[in-house]
């Protein structure tokens, strides 16, 4: 197997930070090479350099042994390099054919699009690599997994030999993930080479040929799944030993804290997103809501926390009717909310750390006397929380935007956990965080459960749901399709529920 792509000493500086520090990487023909690293380690920066979106300050790129200069995505394509971004670059109201040939159109008769010819080419590619898709379907009607296929077809249409997949599994169901890996295998079997960016250890172990780990912009090492294990990779990523398993006692559920009956909620487009959901969460247990992103979880949480009112149904917290409560009333009952989009909803990025700690308690003593804010108490509170929750910040007066994602999330966790709470609603509490922060936040959630708090955990990370939950409810198209005991269920079963199937049916 020859080396098809080499990166030598790639260095990229952003003002005040070294995003890539003399990175060396080589990609062999026909291999799946995983690029593993935490958020902010510099993976995406490196790939954007390779794809011509950034210009490296130092270093060289060689394709098939020849030095190349890549100044734009067009140059990258010309070198046979193609990229599937984490967020797809597709026009939803265009068909597959139109999207695939966008920017590289087949034309006939001096200006008319030759859709037939392009469609034939797409069908050829589909058959060769086992990428079935209807060329004349509209993108908006396709599930996410198929949209991703269209992205891959786009690259093959342009005859890319080196495919970069940036976090391709983040938006997929477990079954779709398996499909994707089959496709990846068939691609490398026919001589394509793949760089696969991820921070999920399991996928790396199962599906890659070689693994390069990046930390703080530097290559920590290159290894293979045979030589490494998950704990070793985690340690390479983080730079210290990490314990990925969570020690937890069996749950001791007590009285019902959160009770939801036949809840119906609309989404932003006024369509029904939550369609008659009922469940309850007891003190001292974690109920995990599993599901692929966009199956009503966001709207469910918004309704439970008072940020949006349901159109039907009933919500009770500690027996009190809270169906049409405001967020303020929600907090006042002794409930806490870790919002899904921390930067949009949970924090004021332009505020100093200390003010973010009082976002929902600023009007109450000791932070206020009458209408006057009490700075000494606010400062003392901030210092205590920074210490107790190990938040890495230069000072409590630092604006929140300069903290890392993990520390921003810790600010929210510290704020919500510092009150005496009886109910915790945590939506995607570890999304996009590094392994160290995930470990920390998981342990805190379990600690709250053991203190007798009722915890509702909403997450699209199946591993997280399985690790933390005592019971699991699976949401699919706005409904809860199954509620199971976490101890009695396998990952595969949950995966089938998430895809809208019943495990019994699937067996047939």
């Amino acid at each position, binding site marked *: 197997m020859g080396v098809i792509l080499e990166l030598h000493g790639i260095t990229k500086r*952003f*003002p*005040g*930070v070294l*995003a890539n520090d003399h990175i060396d990487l080589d990609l062999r023909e026909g291999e799946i090479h995983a690029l593993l690293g935490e*958020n*902010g380690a*510099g993976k*995406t*920066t490196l790939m*954007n350099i390779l794809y011509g*979106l*950034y210009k490296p300050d130092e270093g060289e790129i060689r394709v098939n042994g020849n030095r190349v200069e890549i100044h734009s995505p067009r140059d990258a394509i010309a070198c046979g390099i193609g990229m599937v971004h984490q967020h797809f670059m597709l026009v939803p109201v265009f068909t597959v054919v139109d999207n695939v040939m966008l920017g590289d159109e087949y034309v006939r008769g001096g200006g008319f699009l030759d859709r037939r010819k392009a469609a034939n080419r797409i069908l050829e590619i589909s058959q060769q690599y086992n990428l079935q898709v209807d060329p004349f379907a509209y993108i908006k009607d396709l599930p996410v997994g198929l949209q991703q296929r269209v992205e891959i077809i786009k690259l093959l249409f342009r005859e890319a030999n080196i495919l970069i997949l940036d976090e391709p599994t983040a938006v997929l169901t477990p079954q779709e993930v398996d499909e994707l890996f089959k496709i990846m295998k068939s691609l490398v079997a026919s001589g394509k080479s793949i760089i696969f960016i991820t921070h999920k250890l399991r996928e790396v172990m199962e599906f890659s040929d070689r693994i390069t780990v990046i930390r703080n912009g530097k290559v920590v090492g290159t290894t293979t799944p045979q030589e490494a294990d998950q704990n070793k990779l985690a340690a390479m990523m983080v730079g210290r030993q990490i314990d990925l398993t969570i020690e937890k006692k069996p749950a001791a559920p007590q009285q019902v804290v959160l009770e939801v009956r036949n809840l119906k909620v609309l989404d932003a487009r006024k369509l029904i997103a939550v369609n008659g959901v009922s469940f309850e969460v007891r003190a001292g247990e974690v109920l995990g809501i599993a599901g692929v992103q966009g199956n009503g979880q966001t709207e469910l949480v918004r309704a439970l*926390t*008072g*940020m949006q009112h349901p159109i039907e149904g009933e919500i009770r917290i500690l027996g009190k009717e809270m169906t049409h409560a*405001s*967020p*303020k*009333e*929600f*907090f006042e009952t002794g409930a806490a*909310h870790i*919002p899904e*989009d921390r930067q*949009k*909803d*949970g*924090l*004021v*990025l*332009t*505020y100093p750390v200390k*003010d973010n700690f*009082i*976002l*929902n308690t*600023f*009007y109450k003593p000791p932070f*206020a006397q009458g*209408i*006057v*804010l009490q700075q000494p108490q606010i400062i003392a509170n901030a210092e205590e929380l920074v210490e107790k929750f190990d938040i890495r910040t230069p000072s409590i007066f630092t*604006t929140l*935007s*300069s903290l890392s994602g993990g520390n921003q999330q810790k600010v929210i966790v510290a704020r919500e956990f510092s009150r005496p709470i009886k109910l915790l609603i945590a939506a995607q509490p570890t999304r996009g965080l590094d392994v160290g922060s995930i470990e920390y936040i998981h342990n805190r959630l379990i600690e709250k459960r053991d203190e007798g708090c009722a915890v509702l955990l909403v997450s699209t990370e199946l591993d997280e749901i399985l690790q933390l939950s005592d019971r699991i409810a699976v949401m699919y198209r706005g409904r809860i399709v199954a509620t199971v005991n976490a101890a009695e269920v396998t990952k595969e079963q949950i995966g089938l529920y998430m895809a809208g199937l019943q495990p019994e049916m699937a067996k047939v």
Partner: protein
Amino acid sequence: MDDSKKRQEQNPKRLNVFLEEVRRSPLTVTFLAIFTGLFLGGIIAALTSEQMYAAFRVSLGEGIKVGAQAAWNTYRALFLGAFGDPAKISAAFATGDWLQINRALSPFFESLVQATPYIFAGLAVAFGFRVGLFNIGAEGQIFVGALAAVWAGVFIKGLPAIIHAPLAFLIGGLGGALWGFVPGWLKAKTGAHEVIITIMMNYIAFRLSEYLLTGYLRDPNKTTPISAPIETTAWIPRFFPDPNRFHLGFFIALGIAYLIYLLLFKTTWGFELRTVGANPSAAHYAGMNIVRSMVITMSLSGMLAGFAGANEVLGVNRNLGVAFSSGYGFDSIALALLGNSHPLGVVLAALLFGFLRNGAIQMQLTAGIPIDIISIIQAMILAFIAAPAIIRTLYRLKLPKEVEVAIRSEGESA
């Protein structure tokens, strides 16, 4: 020996740290923007001088000399107009004659008189900015404030000054508050954008004032559309005899600026309002009432602008004519920007604008230099404030730390 050596080594380090801070500070950009605006204003003053072109025909050196002279004359006249003539002031103090001292100092005080409505109107716009609302309607609110104050000054009779003047001032504020409340309420109820509504409300205010001044409020003894003079009991007291118009309004403005500062930064109400401005989603999450905050803010903002109108009517003009058009309301948008929407910044920016405006009037009268040069300077200062990248490039400044980090994280997620 050792100690002093160490100290010597430390000092340059400290100096470097200090310079580094200065290069990152947003204040530096503001000051350099003002400086650059004034500098370019000087060049434009030279370019508009016909003598300079004549002198260039003689020789290059002569041309530059005359051009520099023209710029110097402009700024000298501006300075004398804004602050008074130091020579005259010291001569007046030497005579000890109170009347002469008053005359000599009056340009300085007149600048403060000009700055006063700027403070009120600038606070109005800045307060809105802090809550994420663009109150473009300060001009209209000033008009309505002036109308309400003049009504209270003319038609309420028989009250002692201690009650009448504050009452008329307050009624002026309430007039402005009404004009701010309407767009705030419409935004909260219907989602109508406050920029559009406040602009439209301006036109309504202008036409309303013309209508009232040609009818209900018109002085029957005059042929021109002008209101009757307000009762002397409604006057905001002046400190000095004519022609010095310096009045208590200036100190009221400073006091209100301080109150706004306290409200915004020291109280729970201010915390809520600022949070709504900084991140409405987070404010909603935290249980804050966004609709209420918007309505309150637009009303208060309108009230502050209304005070500007009342201040002009009760303290300076003492009646209201159709020619009352001030332009304060529009300038104040720029001024709030210059003052970084902070009450202290607004006061400083208002003083700058007051001195420039008054200086310019005097400059035109005494040196014959067109007043428009000041508009150009103001426009350039604001352009530089709005496009700080120009100033940073010109003076090799660094970005503030937070901005740097924000750019970095954008880069990461791109």
